[in-house]
């Protein structure tokens, strides 16, 4: 589905990613974990077409995305839920959802879009309650749900998420993650970037550890959970065993 090969990217002259290769298969949840400043967001922003890579390739559905603008990538089915949610704060919840389907709304899919909005309401019932409210007035967790729902409105094949757990109550995070695994059952592929490694590995099939712009460890969920270094650095294992 998505293949990233030897990607180098960053801001202006600052090279953040120093050759990163990541693969997401059909119907898979893949997570990239790592500390602050490792380049996780840079990776997703580059795949989404907001940042231009210095080198390397991004292939989606067997097409090279190099010449694709950010909008075209959305159209191709590769959508990012950005870090910090970035909902349109002075627009209503419903308008936010409609804008998620912006490209589809030009193609006479009015009733299909309406159906999808209803579907988002059933996935995240709180959004229906708040549909006429301005998005900026929602709580952090609700905004995160809205950001995910907005991205889903474009009917993506691959959903990329940048730290969906940031600043949100653990119970809401579990709820969101449950919804994500449910969407995967329906055929969605997911690339999940997280600092909260424990949470991310709880739903992922495979994972990569990104440190200072390079992949240092990769493997299946079980391999990562059992990896000593990963356990100590990201899962707080030594400490939890002491606690117990």
């Amino acid at each position, binding site marked *: 589905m998505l293949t990233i090969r030897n990607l180098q990217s960053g801001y202006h002259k600052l090279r953040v990613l120093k050759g990163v290769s990541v693969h997401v298969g059909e119907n898979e949840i893949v997570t990239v974990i790592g500390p602050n400043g490792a380049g996780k967001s840079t990776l997703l922003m580059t795949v989404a077409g907001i940042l231009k890579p210095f080198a390397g390739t991004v292939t989606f559905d067997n097409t090279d995305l190099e010449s694709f603008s950010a909008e075209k990538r*959305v159209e191709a089915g590769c959508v*990012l839920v950005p870090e910090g949610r*970035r909902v349109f704060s002075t627009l209503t919840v419903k308008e936010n959802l409609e*804008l998620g389907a*912006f490209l589809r709304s030009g193609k006479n899919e009015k009733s299909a879009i309406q159906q999808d909005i209803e579907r988002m309401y059933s996935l995240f019932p709180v959004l229906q309650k708040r549909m006429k409210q301005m998005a900026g007035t929602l709580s952090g967790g609700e905004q995160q749900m809205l950001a995910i729902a907005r991205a889903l409105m474009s009917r993506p094949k691959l959903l990329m998420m940048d730290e969906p757990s940031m600043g949100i109550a653990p119970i809401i995070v579990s709820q969101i993650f449950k919804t994500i695994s449910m969407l995967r059952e329906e055929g969605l592929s997911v690339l999940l970037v997280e600092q909260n490694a424990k949470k991310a590995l709880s739903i992922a099939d495979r994972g990569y550890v990104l440190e200072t712009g390079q992949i240092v460890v990769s493997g299946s969920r079980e391999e990562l959970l059992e990896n000593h270094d990963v356990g100590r650095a990201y899962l707080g294992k030594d400490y939890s065993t002491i606690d117990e």
Partner: protein
Amino acid sequence: MNVDLFFNYLVIGLTVGAQYAIVAIGFNIIYNTTGIINFAQGDFLILGAMVAISMSSILPIGIAIGVGVLVAAVYGAVVENVFIRRNRSFSPFRSVCIGIIAALLLKTLGIFSFLPEGIDFAAAFLFGLPVGFGLETVFRKYMKEQTVLSLIVLTIAVSILTREIMSHLWDKDAHVLPYFIGDSNTILSLGSISFSPQRIWVLGICALLVIGLYVFFKYTRYGKAMRACSLDHTAAKLCGINVRLMITISFIVSAAIAALAGSVISPLSQTKYDMGSVLAIKGFSVAILGGLGNSFAAVAGGLILGILEAFSVSIFPNAYKDVVAILLLLLILVFKPSGVFGSRQASQLKEF
């Protein structure tokens, strides 16, 4: 001041104010999508009115105004494409535009004045267009992302350029569009107040524009997308919105509404090539008065300024009329820079 005079001033103030309001809304539309304050806004208005005036001699007045609006809209798109957009890939459209500007400059400078009339124009274009393609080929690679401030200064250059082009395409005299109904002596009486029916046209059309824009931004696909762009360009792109296109549309829309407002008010206030800069200052004062980016506040601000100006005539000499706007601008900037209707918190988060 008796009651009749009061209402007469009020009607005059409202019509002039409506024009300011439309210019200010134009400022806001572009400001919202780009953060730029477009000081060529007043020149868009004059350009549209000038074209409408020229066309009105051969076309029915409604169609003439339509042509004026269309020309202004295209010009707005050209300004955005040539001056504002920072696109490093080769653009044939930009080349042609630069070529036309070069040709007009050659014509203005009189380089080909030894050739007969008409042929000199053709010669200017023959030389101008390759110059446009040449400049595009050589300099496009040096296009840099500019700060908002330098783009604002650029719009002042565009304003001067537009004004000079207009002074050569037409002349430096004041022109008027014919009254829509009757002539300058036609008077509509409402009790003891009497005014020209043209004032109803101005108020009516400006009101329709405001309602139309409200509907556009609230309910249409592109309107909503433009509001999204005004909040967060990156998030808009991630929704599949073509932000560049929305910026172009914002220039087209503000130029078009300015041209329409300029045309309806032309019979009353005349149209002259250099009136755009004064209008830009008035419109800017109004936009600041209401709070930048807020279109309903712009309407209120426009009407307030128009009325203040109209009444100032009864106290100060007529020549001091323009002082009102500047004074108001100064007072607002000193005491409430976020605008009368703007929120202080929001303005602190903005670059301008």
